[in-house]
């Protein structure tokens, strides 16, 4: 038979033209085609045994440090180790218990545990900056990344807009950080150290938005830089 779109001569069992992707009705429905059309099986890789062993090792290490601090008070070292190990575990090992971990769920878990590390650091060193400065900033970064991860996972296309938007939010966050920093240290508002990241992130974000908005420019860049 012939493809009605591109005119290629095809075998009798073809369901789609291999040259122009035109869907076809096979002339001989019993013809099986060249190969079975069942999907490729997923390769099962089970690392749960290894993760279990690593979990036990981390728990043992954390438990030993905690016991040491309980036997020889005051407790100073154990919370650092526990929150540090917890952050590492939440970032790298916890998602591995699932075959297809969803980053939309695990990213907030990591940020919550690592916020605990910041909180204890603030308490231990007596900064008093956790609620006025660190929590809003850490929460802002988490919200921005969570939004990007969710959009990338559930929305098709629009990557230039998503990543461009992320860079613009990071530019805004660097400004917010400076404002909160001056407010926490009771200084007058001025823009100094946040200027460079604002310019850098802002320029990157705007460039990505322009590339997303102007398709001919995007094609030119693809040709030029072989993307």
């Amino acid at each position, binding site marked *: 038979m012939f493809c009605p779109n591109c005119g*290629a*001569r*095809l*075998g009798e*069992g*073809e*369901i*789609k*033209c*291999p*040259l*122009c*992707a035109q869907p076809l009705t096979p002339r001989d429905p019993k013809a*099986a*085609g*060249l*190969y*079975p*059309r*069942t*999907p*490729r*099986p997923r*390769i099962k890789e089970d690392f749960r045994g290894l993760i279990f062993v690593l979990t036990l090792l981390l728990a043992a290490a954390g438990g030993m440090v905690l016991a040491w601090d309980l036997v020889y008070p005051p407790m100073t070292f154990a919370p650092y180790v526990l929150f540090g190990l917890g952050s590492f575990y939440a970032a790298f090992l916890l998602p591995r218990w699932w075959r297809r971990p969803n980053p939309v769920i695990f990213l907030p878990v990591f940020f919550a545990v690592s916020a605990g590390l910041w909180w204890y650091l603030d308490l231990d060193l007596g900064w008093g900056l956790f609620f006025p400065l660190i929590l809003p900033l850490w929460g802002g970064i988490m919200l921005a990344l969570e939004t990007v991860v969710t959009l990338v996972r559930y929305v098709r296309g629009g990557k230039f807009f998503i990543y461009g938007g992320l860079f613009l939010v990071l530019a805004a966050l660097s400004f917010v950080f400076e404002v909160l920093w001056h407010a926490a240290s009771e200084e007058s508002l001025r823009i100094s150290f946040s200027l460079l990241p604002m310019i850098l992130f802002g320029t990157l974000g705007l460039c990505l938005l322009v590339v997303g908005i102007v398709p001919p420019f995007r094609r030119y860049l*693809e*040709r*030029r830089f*072989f993307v």
Partner: protein
Amino acid sequence: MSQSQKRWHRLDNAAKIFPASMRRGWSNVFRISFTLTSPVCPEALKRAVARIAPRFPSVCVRLRRGLFWYYLEENAAPPAVVEEGCQPLLPMTARDVAKCALRVLYFENRIAVEFFHALTDGTGALSFVKTLAAAYLEETGLPVRYEGILSPEDGPDPAETEDSFLRHAGPAADKRDPDPAFRLTGTPEPDGFLHVTCATMNAADLLARARKEGISITALLSAFLVHSVAQIQKERVSPRRERAVRVQIAVNLRKYFESRSLRNFVSVFNVGVEKGDTDATLAELYPMVHHQMALQLQPRKLRRVFTANVNSEKGMAIRLVPLFLKNLVMRAVFDTVGERSATLCLSNLGVVSLPEEMERAIDRFDFIIGPQAKAPYNCAVVSYKGRLCINIVRNTREPALEQRFFPLLESEGVSITLESNER
């Protein structure tokens, strides 16, 4: 067979790179299949495989790790016979090749064998497949004459398991050409699906077209591929950033050096156009490719090419390095140099000939090589009973090369029929 009786072999010189370069989702695998006039009987196929396995001690093997090198160990049991479930040439994982480094598959009327390239090359694999076909037909009750086919009743010949590279290596070696060629790119299939597009045509038509230009079929197809790839490059890349377009051609060294080995005895060389000449017309390409091939296909030139590989294996410093370090280095070399000198590979297995009674029972032969590790395409050719099959594989969505190469064949007066596994 007891554990102590199992025979083992060192990997041949060409095979050493294949285990080191395999990774998750890619391994160097190729496949030869034949299609019968009647549906396959799995039980007869199992009996045939069990009968011929001892005849091929260097093929029915598994890959094992030593302290300094990989080696091949004979399998106690014959290879398993499995019904083909999905796409061809699924990558073989390290766990797969540690059990058995080849697969015997059947689907409706077709029997296929997929080989990990460390075992053998196309010619060695074809000898195995021919014997399998003969043994299968015998098991189904068809009397077969073993003319030009290795008989399973004969014992294995030590000459068939030799590393012919070592025997034929010379004193002088060629330097390798590191200049990178244009790479075809595309959107990767998310599930790793491998598209196979097969063009069948009258071999006499293609031969007549090649003879008209005074060149071989391989040279003609190489010229068509180079021309098609050059057109794609012209569309995608600015002239300032263009690269050479080269096709890597596999050459069976048994034609040039005495060898009965069933292991790898194959070399490769590149033909094509260099940067700045990629606008060459087909009429200009025919003599260019023809003369490049003639220059490369000199026994002395071929010897210098594989002597370079043999020399690198013989160095004492390399031999004393533990396997895991060798793997790191070999993989880094493969990733940076191995595939970058050519855009894709063209492997022509040539004409498959069988005794008359087998030809009546077997309709068709196919030969497919897997895609490259970092480039999506490869191309394999085989001819049987006057029909020539060109199988192009790709692991990306866009059929960019097929859209240019196959219409080019038609426009040059070669009538083709396309079959594919498009879904």
